[in-house]
């Protein structure tokens, strides 16, 4: 299977703090990969580094083919202003930015896609509701609908299931698996290891550096998890 993103000895961080160091590996095209690790392991930084938002202090990140132009990113809920005065429909419609841009109007086809995305995440009746009135779970569904409308080749999701109940998580997980089945590459930062074991074939275990990367059952071993915890606690630094 070909690569879609290759990391070559990358170090990511800021002037006075390195969050990820000496990480090498590749995300396979069409793979469903979980990025896991203790708090402060550099999971979100890795995603932001790949997006080019965190300084690449060393190494090289290579997008294979034209993939670099076709990445959809889902931020954590705290990263955007959920109290902004906008309806759910308008929020989700932003997913069509690449086709609509700053000035073009919404065609009938785009409207249909928007309705389909809202229905797919169970928000068909919530389109006119202000974003600020949605619950945490509904907000997360709206984020998924926006991502659906984007229709990218690579999806990067930063903690998409944090603070969600089991039913919502399963619903949204089904969407990730559907994208995976369509041949899209999905990379998600997660905390729930049971969910990862159940649904994600590939896993990258981070602890400021790569601890293990490969098939989930080979990565999430007690030894690797123990090592990751100690690396993050600073024992082995």
């Amino acid at each position, binding site marked *: 299977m070909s690569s879609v993103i290759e990391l070559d000895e990358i170090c990511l961080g800021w002037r006075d703090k390195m969050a990820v160091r000496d990480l090498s590996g590749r995300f396979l095209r069409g793979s469903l990969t979980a990025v896991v690790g203790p708090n402060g392991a550099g999971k979100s930084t890795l995603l932001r580094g790949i997006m080019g*938002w965190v300084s690449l202090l060393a190494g090289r990140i290579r997008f294979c083919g034209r993939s670099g132009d076709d*990445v959809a990113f889902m*931020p954590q809920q705290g990263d*955007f*202003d959920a109290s*902004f*005065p*906008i309806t759910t429909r308008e929020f989700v419609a932003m997913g069509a930015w690449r086709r609509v841009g700053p000035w073009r109007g919404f065609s009938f086809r785009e409207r249909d896609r928007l309705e389909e995305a809202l229905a797919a995440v169970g928000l068909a009746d919530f389109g006119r509701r*202000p974003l600020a009135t949605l619950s945490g779970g509904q907000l997360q569904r709206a984020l998924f609908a926006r991502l659906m409308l984007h229709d990218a080749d690579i999806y990067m999701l930063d903690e998409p299931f944090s603070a969600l109940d089991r039913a919502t998580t399963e619903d949204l997980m089904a969407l990730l698996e559907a994208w995976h089945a369509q041949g899209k590459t999905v990379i998600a930062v997660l905390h729930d290891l049971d969910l990862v074991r159940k649904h994600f074939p590939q896993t990258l275990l981070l602890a400021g550096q790569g601890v293990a990367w490969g098939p989930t059952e080979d990565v999430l071993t007690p030894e690797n998890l123990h090592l990751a915890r100690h690396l993050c606690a600073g024992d082995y630094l």
Partner: protein
Amino acid sequence: MNGIEALYLPFAEFGFMRRAMAGAFALSLAAGPLGVFLILRRMSLMGDAMAHAILPGVAVGFLTAGLSITAMTIGGMVTGLVVALLAAAVSRLTPQREDASFAAFYLMSLGVGVLLISLRGGNMELIHVLFGSVLALDDAALMLVSSASSVTLLALAIIYRPLVLECLDPLFLRSESRAGPVVHAVFLMLLVLTLVSGFQVLGTLMVVGIMMLPAAAARFWAISVVGQMAIAAFGGAFSSYVGLLLSYYANVPASPAIILCAGIVYFLSVTFGLQGGLWQAARRAHARSLRLSRNRERDVLGKQ
């Protein structure tokens, strides 16, 4: 003069009142929508800071060319942008947040501005710059404020979608487009342009009032961004009209009168606004307590 005549006669009789109203209306149309975006970006105090920041440039324009609108405007634009860029640079290069670095630079800027004006001009000139001269707007000043407002409204319409996205979810905009920094820079330029043109009307200190007070009030009447922008513009224009009348009949300075009227509009909005105003909240609380007490009575009757 009857009551109705009192509402328009000062404007019908005196050209300076008509000019004042035209200038204040033009300013309000641009300042209100900008204020709405400042609030949405959680930068409510940015307008105030920027108004102080442009003072040295205005002063240099004044020192070099007297009360020349062009010179003072260019000076204000340059200083405002320099302060904004310096503050952004410090926040990028050091751990200090942008609000703190901006506060430092605008305060320095204010000090330099007041010093420069007092070097050549007297107290009257300083007061003219700080509090404006809405009742003495000439053709050039009217043209400036009208042109600046037109440019601002046109530019806001052009960058509206990315600007909303940048306020709501800057990371998403960053992942989709490289427009974010451009939109931010254009927004800051529009802010400076409106403030500089507004100091002709209300002065560097008072112009912030017509930008922020109607915008803050609009939040209590409209849910959507477009609705808030429209109400802010209308609220600013209405406050200007009432303020000018107050100034005329009560013989008080016009700029503070306009801002005081905008303040009263804000106070009324907080109290009676349909979107989260105090009156509405109290009515809802009252209705809730009535409902609860009825339910309780029904439960008691049911048990009996």
